[in-house]
């Protein structure tokens, strides 16, 4: 079976990672990726990011990942780090509507992108996004640590395919791990979101 949205495939993600050279697959790289200090001789740059519809100017180290910038520079801690090496999907955000592992892309490569995090979904009056409401209705989350990533993956899926079958939803969400095993309830939530969206 083909994935619902070819943009969402793990292969595309891996290719993107290779292109960016940003896989933080070892401990030492992990700390470098957190952008906490600048390598000798490197030049840090103030760059402008479009996050949740707002332009944010932020000081970003050359090797810094998007997840680190969001969490530690912009205070958007809804984006979680479960593995920090492109395996679990807890850090999933949308870049130009495409679910993207925030731990595995360089922030500098995001300058022209439209970034959306879980914090940007709720309406100003507090109304939850249909995916968030669907997850509440279905009690999708258990421990909740993977939930922001699951939410963003579902939002990306439904933008590409507003009325997926359950099987299509299963394929579209396959890049996100839930150790609590709440897949069934998350899928209930995605289908509910498609109904109310």
């Amino acid at each position, binding site marked *: 079976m083909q994935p619902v949205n070819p943009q969402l495939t793990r292969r595309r993600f891996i290719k993107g990672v290779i292109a960016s050279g940003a896989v933080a*697959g070892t*401990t*030492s790289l*992990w*700390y*470098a990726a*957190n952008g*906490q*200090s600048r390598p000798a001789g490197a030049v840090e740059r103030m760059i402008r990011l479009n996050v949740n519809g707002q332009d944010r100017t932020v000081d970003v180290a050359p090797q810094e990942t998007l997840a680190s910038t969001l*969490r530690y520079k912009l205070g*958007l*801690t*809804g*984006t*979680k*780090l*479960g*593995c*920090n*090496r492109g*395996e*679990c999907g*807890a850090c999933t955000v949308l870049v130009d509507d495409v679910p993207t592992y925030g731990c595995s892309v360089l922030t500098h490569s995001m300058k022209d992108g439209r970034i959306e995090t*879980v*914090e940007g*979904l*709720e309406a100003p009056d507090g109304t*939850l996004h249909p*995916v*968030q409401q669907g*997850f*509440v209705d279905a*009690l*999708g*989350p*258990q*421990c*909740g*640590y*993977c*939930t*922001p990533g699951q*939410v963003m993956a579902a939002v990306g899926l439904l933008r590409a395919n507003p009325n997926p079958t*359950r*099987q299509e939803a*299963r*394929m579209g*969400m*396959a890049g*996100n*791990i*839930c*150790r*609590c*095993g*709440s*897949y*069934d*309830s998350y*899928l209930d939530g995605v289908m509910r979101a498609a109904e109310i969206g």
Partner: protein
Amino acid sequence: MAYMHIGKDFVPPDVTGKVTGRIKYAEDYTREGMVYARLLTSPIPHARVLEIDAAEALAMDGVYGILTADEVYPDGEPQSTGLKILTNHPTLVGEPILALAAVDEKTAETAIAAINVTFERLPFVLDPLDSLREGGPNAFVDGNTFGRQGFTEAKWSSDQVASFRAGNAPAEDAPTTGPIPTFAYGDLEAGFAAAADGFVYEGSFTTAGYPHHSMEPRSAMAYWEDGKLYLHGTSQSLTALANDMAGIIGVAKEDLVFINAATGGGFGQRARAGSIPSMAIPAKMSQKLNRPVMMRITREEEFTIGGARQGFQGWIKVGFRPDGVMSACDIFVVSDNGGKGGGADAFSAADCISILYQTEAVRFRGASVATNTAHRGAQRGPGQNQIAPIISPIMDAAADALGMSRLDIRVVNSAQTGDVGGPQRQPLTSAYMPEALQQAANDFDWEGRQSRRRQRNGSKVTGLGIGQGYHNAGRSGMDGIVMMGADGRLKIHNGVGNLGTYSYASTSRAAAEALKMPWESCDIITGRTDYHLPITSPQDGSNSIFTNTRTCYGAAMDMLAKMKEIAAQGLGGEPADYDISDERVHRIADGGIGMSYAEVAQRAMELGGKFTGEAELPEELAEWTQIAASRLAGTGFMGIYHDPAHSNNPPGFTVTCTEIELDLETGKYEILDMVSIGECGTVMHPQGLKNQLVGGAVWGIGLSALERHLYDPQNGLPASTGYWQSKVPTYLDTPARIETGWVDLPDPENPVGARGIGEPTQGSVSAALTAAISDALDGHIFGAAPITTDMIINHVAGTQEDAVALAQNNFRG
């Protein structure tokens, strides 16, 4: 019984925070002046630290200091095998030797690389059987086991080990060792004699040890302020863990503020402070440096200090009488106890057989042997769930041999109310396994699907499986507190951890039920210990629902009794003349005479004394609860309760039916359908129960098919350092739909009839899957979990690899 809250869905108060990302986990916090700690961990599996030279590191810009084992244990490290905060005697790769704090993590890592640690290499061992063999290496300097007698050395003769490894029965005098090395009840010899005309199975088995893999790494942040320690951590058990963590850190209980609004997955390893002492590192570093300290833990580090399930290498003999009754079971398990001690998983496995199948005679013997691998601890159904996938195909073989249906043989051997189990022959509080079996069979159309058994479709063949799971599911002896202010709102102080089961909320509803309180008028007080929360049992072993509905209900009933007393004082008559409804206490005979809850609470605060917790507290309250109650005393109307110990065993049971299609060419199989039924007394929260059933199912799929933890046998290095090397089930490994249901019959020893359920589904699902695989392969019994695609292909190809007994060590590929 018609309940107001129980058995009804609700929106737990933390769900919105989870879907919006607003709820905070330990690593989400920050504090001005915060510095970052990193760990120097052991690069070798067994060693002694001879010297630490950190001079160069400490001279680096941005480095604030180090913390060593000598500092955290000035009187010497504890003489036990348990996890230490830091150690000079590492017994596994990755064990923390020291911590270093710096302005950021990169600086910390750079400085750690400049520290020179001189190690004395010591012998190491990865396979318990290698250590059991006479002359084999020991995981510890002083032996390979640890028990009440301290360190000891357990050895078998080389011949005994070779025979056991080859799948033969252990010698009658094979030495046993471990936390609970043996038990027996019934007449084993008579049991097997009775099975002589029935069916007897004998064979070896292995089960894998594997990591917990909680999604949230066990990061922690700490700072000290006004003599109090503020610790942002991760925990399954809020007050139970904090109560013990204070001792590990060395801070008075009243001076520890443990903050833990949410935990990113527990599964056993975060239930007790002893299994997560790393949280003491930022606490002690912060004390030393007088700065806030954040210590983030990586996924790779989770593999070494995050703990793992014990692996089994065992032998079992099971006898069935001609009528299908399991008349005898003789089981011997060599448990891999890892490098930092472990548990009594093997005992629990035998105990499970005794209870789940009501076996007439059981003999359990075990040897729990240390290895220089990840530390072991409780993991979802520790023991019960390892044995479930081993037993289920044996049940089917017996059914086939005796000409019974596979459903009937389970009904014949099922637990019912009035039955006893385990070595103490402890009565069950209630049990409805026949009902659960029948409900699962009906919902799955078990009988209707029998015609599909072993049907071929090209290279694919259909297998049907049915499995059962059990875990004891309730404790007692804990405390409860409820409060009410002049606004009349009910504040339920709940010390249960928030690890995703929502039991902190569903148990609170027992208090609302007792007071007939609208849920909108209730607040759950939880998330940090300076909210003054009562002690609870560690939130493990499926116990929370049973244990904490008793405490919440009891505290509310205390408040109810006081309400009636206050009403009688003010309005005349006796307390027994009053009842409650619509947030009022009123005369039974005349509902117009009464007081609102707000008025009662106001009056209670005027009266003080026992009504506000300033007098007549239950004498049996735990020290932790006494501290909480003393701080709440006088601040509002208090209901408080100590739950006396109960004696019987509240069981949690599940039954799962599944249909798979197994491809004989690839060894892969697809789960076509799955139905799981819970038998856990009265249902508290249907959505929460459903989540436990489907979550346990995913864990069962991992146990029976995927999860293991590999080590390099030459150097003892963990080969599993990420999810991709130690795979957990994903969306695509699990069915698109898992059907669930429940029996929903009340347990008499719980005030609302409820028992727990967290663990057993993993067992029943893994049991159903190994049974289905066996079914698809004409009844072949692998005697292993997981059953990997390689094993299936080898079997189909007729190679003997899968049948070489105990060749698949728990920790080898």
